[in-house]
């Protein structure tokens, strides 16, 4: 099973700590000082409506519409997750339209190359931009999960999913017993 991060709307307080942690985890080590409104593109987004506050992000679908939609096989299944091979991304935005959750985006970043100690600009490079479960952080896991002050975010893997299902079945059984009684 692919792992994914889920948000519990009955715990989320809409504080956006997760958004900053996400942007920082993908800042190539630039640190907070690299953050600015123009370039702030977290892969997790807090959404607030009249009745709900919660965070939304990639579900790492098992049969992912974005994977299926990509004409250049830039989106792949790897390490129990859906990952983008950025060098293959064309920026065609098929995946953006295919994702039913609105959590895939295409962004452009300055493309540069290092040559003889100089940084050469090569215009811009498109990137399919979405949650990568912070795989670069290794065992530290997704940055958003680790900072959420109310523990509204959880990393769901097979084990966590099984535990959730077990609890749901138990509750269903108890409710059924109540109805019968």
């Amino acid at each position, binding site marked *: 099973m692919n792992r994914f991060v889920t948000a519990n709307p009955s715990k989320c307080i809409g504080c956006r700590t997760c958004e900053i942690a996400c942007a920082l985890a993908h800042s190539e080590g630039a640190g*907070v000082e690299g953050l600015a409104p123009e370039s702030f593109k977290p892969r997790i987004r807090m959404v607030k409506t009249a009745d709900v506050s919660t965070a939304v992000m990639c579900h790492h679908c098992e049969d992912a519409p974005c994977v299926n939609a990509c004409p250049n096989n830039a989106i792949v299944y790897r390490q129990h997750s859906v990952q983008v091979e950025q060098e293959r991304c064309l920026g065609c935005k098929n995946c953006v339209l295919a994702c039913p959750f609105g959590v895939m985006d295409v962004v452009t970043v300055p493309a540069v190359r290092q040559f003889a100690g100089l940084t050469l600009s090569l215009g811009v490079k498109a990137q399919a931009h979405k949650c990568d479960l912070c795989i670069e952080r290794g065992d530290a896991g997704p940055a958003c999960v680790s900072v959420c002050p109310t523990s509204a975010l959880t990393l769901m893997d097979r084990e966590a999913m099984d535990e959730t299902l077990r609890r749901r079945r138990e509750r269903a059984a108890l409710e059924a017993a109540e109805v019968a009684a």
Partner: protein
Amino acid sequence: MEKHMAVCPYCGTGCKLNLLVEGGKVVGAEPLNGVTNEGELCLKGYFGYDFINDTKLLTPRLRNPMLRRSRDAAFEAVSWDEAIQYAAKRLGEIKAKYGPDSIMTTGSSRGTGNETNYVMQKFTRAVLGTNNVDNCARVCHGPSVAGLQVTLGNGAMSNSIPEIEHTKCVLVFGYNVADSHPVIAKRIIKAKERGAKIIVCDPRKIETARLADLWLPLNNGSNMALVNAFANVLINEGLYNKEYVANYTEGFDEYKKIVDKYTPEYAEAITGLPADDIREAMRIYAAAPSATILWGMGVTQWGQGVDVVKGLSGLALLTGNLGRPNVGVGPVRGQNNVQGSCDMGVLPTEFPGYQKVTDPEIRAKFAKAWGVDSLPGEIGYRLTDVPHLAETGKLKAMYVMGEDPAQTEPDLTQVRKGFEAMEFVIVQDIFMTKTAMFADLILPATSWGEHEGVFSAADRSFQRFTKAVDAKGDVKHDWEIISLLATAMGYPMHYNNTKEIWDELRGLCPIFYGATYEKMEGLGAVPWPCRDLDSAGSKYLYEGNVFQRPGGKGLLFATEWRPPQDQLTEEFPLILCTVREVGHYSCRSMTGNCAALQTLADEPGYVTINPKDAKALGIRDQELVWVSSRRGKVITRASVTDRTNKGAVYMTYQWWIGACNELTIHAVDPIAKTPEYKYAAVRVEPIADQVWAENYVQQEYAKLKGGLSNAVTRAAKKAPAFA
């Protein structure tokens, strides 16, 4: 990488954290397992440290003392010697000419720490010879202190933060915990998971309202009517604890007489709430085996704040929800050390440790300890009196430390006039602020992260924080600056470190005596009262239901509801209520200089408005609009949201362009002198030319920022020797 233990400088939760330091620079923060935060931080705790590094995103850090000899001159950098001599001379002259009561000082409820506050009030009382010392508790939880001191005898939270998650009912009144104290919000969520019932009284659909079992969206300005109706239900439905009331309270008959009129039906007309919801709330509250009331600015920032605080404590007394674990009354302090500045006696009425200036024995004790013949016994001025006192010539000099009244006080036009009228203004801060622009002398201090000390969390817990990096520039610790000034004014004052100060004040304050630096080592927290060296402090107050009043009983007190003071008219048909937002803090001099926090929210800020009101005015989401009141007019951005109730609009108070305090009214509570920030009549107007408006905002913002940073750079250039 080095790690230095600190306490978050942003809110009263008092989260413990490590500052991560590399090459003399703070590069990160990680949570520690402190008593109040248990390994959590919110965005300000995690990402709110880079202001220390002088990012200049909003304002520059101060590096040198700066002086201007006349108000139309530019600041020039001067040596400490010159700055201190100048200050001593001017203050001395003013004191000689107009008397000690013509001078006022402030403590700081922010990063300076308790020791500095102690030294500031000592300077004010022993050296200047006046009780004119106050802090920004005046504009926030002043009414909680004033109210609770009368009814229960102690102005602080009766419970501790960790207890909140073990209570069976939380009554949240005028308190947006998600935005004010995110880590306390987690306690409420946990309480709910453990089966607690949550009742929220707030006109807006705040985050906790979303999670509540019962949400009472009362009309803005109807608090007292609702609290009286609550008491009415408890009494008339026989839900109150008769035994508790008989044994531990007084004033019941008088109390009953007043609340009798406030039947839920009567209150319905004032509060706009269905009578049955009012009943239901009290049935839930009274039925819970343990219940806790938490409140914030929605209770205190009113012309009738003190009365409502007394009323809320009455509900706890009626139901016996005091004096044991997991119950109580919690005025949850906003700024990180506003509890501390009150503890340290930066109040015109009290010495440190809540000892009254009007008590001759107490005065004699402090006079002896401080080596002066006598200390002033008359209650001093309040911070909110300052503009008026200055304009009428009673106040001639002001020494502002670590506060920015030209941003945070109500009716800023008045505030500016007040500063202009004064003969001598000293501002001691870490940043160039709007207030500093009115100063004659600016004294640069070290920041949180650059000094150590003790903070008091909202729940009375003393916690130590340490220094992480050396300060840059020619700056000094706040308490060192004050000591130098005292010495220059003929009162030799010298401390080697904060522990020396702490031990002096501990010795003078019986309720703090047992809270030693040793006990606060590492993650240690000591909640006062802590009278003995072998005591661990008091998690909750009023053990055994003994109240800290003459006779030991709690006082039941009610009074009639009074409508708010500003008048809605056709010209000004909407209510403006000022609020907080999660990512920014106080006047924003700190958070506005943090890249992450600034990225989430920047000028001109927002006015939130209900879709129906917006539609009627022809205003669309995210458009710039004008907001005006009888006192001023500002530009800001509309956020159209269903979470805002019809008829009211909300603005956060930290913006320079969208500065809501240009609009607020200087109407204060008669006792606490806390302003009615929660109710000003305003008008909101669309702007046809949005392109012009966007440019205007950018230009004004650049102008303001430029003014402040130029003042600093120009001063350094004029006297390069000290730069």
